């Protein structure tokens, strides 16, 4: 293959592409879409994070302002975790609109993460979310198809293809040149998007700037790869169609099936085949198991009675008032440990079910590059399911530690004589203790962890790149000039 010829063909593609007047309004629309979604994404990110940080701080101030009191009151006072958005979420909203944003963290109870954007929406959210990623993933392919559907077929129709071949260009060189030309158009359009995103990202690097910029770089690369795959598909379809009209119709059909039909259908089928339990069933199963294990609130419960007897025997005393620590705090610590373990088991089973529901979609990435880029883009933007689960786990771990810390304070500082109740101004812990408990601080997944989670999508996209390149060489031996 000769470089000069490829460049010549690519340059010729550019001039013909921009000669048609129809492209300018189209480009204008795409630019407007990108501008709108970029700015709204940024505003939403900034506003939401400000709101959430504000309330996280308000909750903390309220926590610290508590006077001396019984630690179990503080365990119930609890605190909140407000989920922060990762800076790149301004690029790709992923599933964030459908996940809760705030959770109340208290002793004995794992609360739901509430107030997702979807729960506050009028139902319009189901039309999708206009983000930069959405424009790049769904509108860009159409743009490329439109620019490139006639790239080879029109040359054939007008007979110029034959002339080019006679003049010494190889078919392979023509296809590569056309692809390169189309791909360059995509890259030129992508560049301002990346610049805008980069501009917004400066100063928003959160805790780990290196991570944010690494993700940004990888995100840029995978989109470039995605556009390369699209360009090749366009040129190959054009080269194998006898008429430009047929090429366009084929490409539009591909777009419909891969972008509109497949993702929703695969997820819907996943849900249909692997139904998950209802909330009532989930919660009552946990309650049953907790009660079976032993109810720390039931005075006659055999499990906790046995526990009491063994504790009394170990300390060689007759009643809990004679123990060297507050027995109430001890029992609640045990109760928290067992009930949390039970909850976590059920939660894991539920997540496995969700995982099953998602498998069809995840594996669809292998045959659908759109699904691959979608998953990958969410993962890198910190708006995928794993990122959300990580937040949930962090919140639950914090909740557990907080409850146990309060139980420890009770064991240590509350007189064993105060066997029951937590009201009143005697039997209290000094309020200085409250500020010693660290506040909830959300951490984001590291870059390596993100890649670990999204390996399947990354692999399929790379695979698509390889197949596409192979396809173009294979096709160049198959197609004819007339």
């Amino acid at each position: 293959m000769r470089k000069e010829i490829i460049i010549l063909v690519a340059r010729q593609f550019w001039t013909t592409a921009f000669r048609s007047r129809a492209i300018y309004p189209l480009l204008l629309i795409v630019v407007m879409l990108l501008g709108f979604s970029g700015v709204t994404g940024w505003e939403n990110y900034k506003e939401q994070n400000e709101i959430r940080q504000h309330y996280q701080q308000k909750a903390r101030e309220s926590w610290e302002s508590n006077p001396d009191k019984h630690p179990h009151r503080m365990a119930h006072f609890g605190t909140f975790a407000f989920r922060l958005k990762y800076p790149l979420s301004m690029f790709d909203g992923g599933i964030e609109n459908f996940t809760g944003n705030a959770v109340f963290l208290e002793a004995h109870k794992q609360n739901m993460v509430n107030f997702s954007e979807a729960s506050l929406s009028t139902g319009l959210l189901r039309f999708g979310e206009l983000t930069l990623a959405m424009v790049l993933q769904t509108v860009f392919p159409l743009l490329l198809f439109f620019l490139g559907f006639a790239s080879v077929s029109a040359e054939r129709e007008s007979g110029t293809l034959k002339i080019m071949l006679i003049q010494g260009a190889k078919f392979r060189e023509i296809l590569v040149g056309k692809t390169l030309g189309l791909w360059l158009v995509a890259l030129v359009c992508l560049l301002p998007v990346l610049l805008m995103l980069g501009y917004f990202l400066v100063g928003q690097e959160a805790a780990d700037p290196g991570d944010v910029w690494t993700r940004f770089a990888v995100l840029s690369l995978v989109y470039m790869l995605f556009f390369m795959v699209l360009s090749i598909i366009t040129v190959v379809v054009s080269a194998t169609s006898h008429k430009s009209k047929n090429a366009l119709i084929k490409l539009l059909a591909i777009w419909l099936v891969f972008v509109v039909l497949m993702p929703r259908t695969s997820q819907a089928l996943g849900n249909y085949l692997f139904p998950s339990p209802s909330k009532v069933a989930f919660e009552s199963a946990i309650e049953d198991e907790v009660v079976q294990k032993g109810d720390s609130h039931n005075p006659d419960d055999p499990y906790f009675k046995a526990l009491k007897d063994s504790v009394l025997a170990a300390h060689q005393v007759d009643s809990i008032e004679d123990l060297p620590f507050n027995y109430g705090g001890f029992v609640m610590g045990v109760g928290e440990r067992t009930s949390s373990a039970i909850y976590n088991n059920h939660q894991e089973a539920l997540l496995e079910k969700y995982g099953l529901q998602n498998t069809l979609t995840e594996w669809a990435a292998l045959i659908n590059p759109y699904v691959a880029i979608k998953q990958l883009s969410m993962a890198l933007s910190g708006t995928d399911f794993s990122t959300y689960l990580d937040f949930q786990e962090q919140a639950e771990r914090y909740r557990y530690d907080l409850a146990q810390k309060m139980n420890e304070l009770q064991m240590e500082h509350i007189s064993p004589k105060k066997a029951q109740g937590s009201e009143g101004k005697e039997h209290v812990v000094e309020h200085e203790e409250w500020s010693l408990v660290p506040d909830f601080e959300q951490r984001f997944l590291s870059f390596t962890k993100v890649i670990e989670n999204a390996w399947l999508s990354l692999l399929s996209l790379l695979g698509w790149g390889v197949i596409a390149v192979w396809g173009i060489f294979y096709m160049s031996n198959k197609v004819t000039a007339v």
Partner: protein
Amino acid sequence: MYRLIIKELFRSKVVILCMVLVAVLGILGLLIGKQFLDRQEVTTEQVADYQQEHIQRNVTYHSDDLGLLLYYIKFALINEPDKLAALSIGQSDVNPNVRQVTIRNLEGQKYDTDLVNPSSLQAGNLDLGFVIIHLFPLLIIVLTFNLLSEEREAGIWPLITVQSKSRFYYIAKKLLIRVVAVLAIYLLLFVVAIMLLQLPVNTTLSAFFLLGMGYLVFWFTLSFLVVSFGKGSSYNALTLLSLWLVLSILLPSGVNSFLTNRYPVPEALETMIDQRDGYHKKWDTNKRETMEAFYDHYPQFASYGMPPEEGFNWLWYYAMQQMGDDDAREATLAMNKKLEQRESASRMFAWVLPSMHVQLAFNQLAGTGQSDHLRFLEATDRFHERLRMDFYPKIFETQAVSSVDWESLQPKIYKKEPTVDWLAVQLPVWGGALILLAVSLIRFGRLRHREGW
């Protein structure tokens, strides 16, 4: 003539494939809707069983303290979905149809979301509503984009000129057959829906059916308009697909982004903190203040007087809980106002965006919209209030646990009777279709004039 046109239409494999695909996805949508209804039914049963067992268990554990017992017991209010919900699941996958509440402060329990896989929520429900709003228009595009250009590009246009009396009628007939074919599939899906879901044939269903039909007719007229420009097949296909993308994805999602940013709801988070502080901080203030605020709210209980400052007491405890709700009230009202604003702004945009209008109106008819959920939350408020008014006196008078007939406390059902505002539901789509039809007839007239046929 008709027979030939029909034959010609069904000769194309692509056309048949698309029709079958839409029909199959429509039926899949109905199955998904059925699964949704079945699930709700199972949940309703589970809730009834669960409540029975849950109450019995707690009554045996805490048989000597009514105040403590009612601290634990959860009572369920069930939002029984209309069967139409199967056709347009709307917001009812995010918002649970069961509320289980204790008589403690409501704000802390009211907004609990359902257990759902967020990835599925993001992908969206494949219900019949989706098939109608997004897929039927695509079928219409496939069937009509080359209505006129097909003959021209195949070179048989002059032949038709010679053979038929009026080329306009020929095109009109072609269009009519396509309309009939699409409406036949549409009707078929409704017949299947009625049988599969045992839908009652009533006003709401008719309104639903007619609205969907109006939307399909709207798309036909839009296609017809594009065709009437007399451009080539590629141009038409691309224009129509772009229109589809703009009308049924980009504009609605753009409007949604706009509304989300225009009306953020920090009040939601405010309620969480307010209700917690409103209640919990009362443990540290003196009882008299709390009781006075409580009696201000419920003067009918003032006769229970002031509990002793020292020690624990249920009257004081539930008064503190009430303060959680009372203190969060302002934020709650502000939040509801925001949600209403979002709703009314969406409706305004919906007047000019058929896809949005149809989605919102489908949800409204099926009782699965955001406003329906807000009504259910209001019903939950009343339900909670009634429970407290029943139990407060019993607790404050330290009545025995046995004084309550626990067996009779079954989950309560909330059911909203849908009302149909015919004009507001039908006008946007039918009116739009009519306008487009008029414009495209004028265009056709010009095209005929210009080309002399």
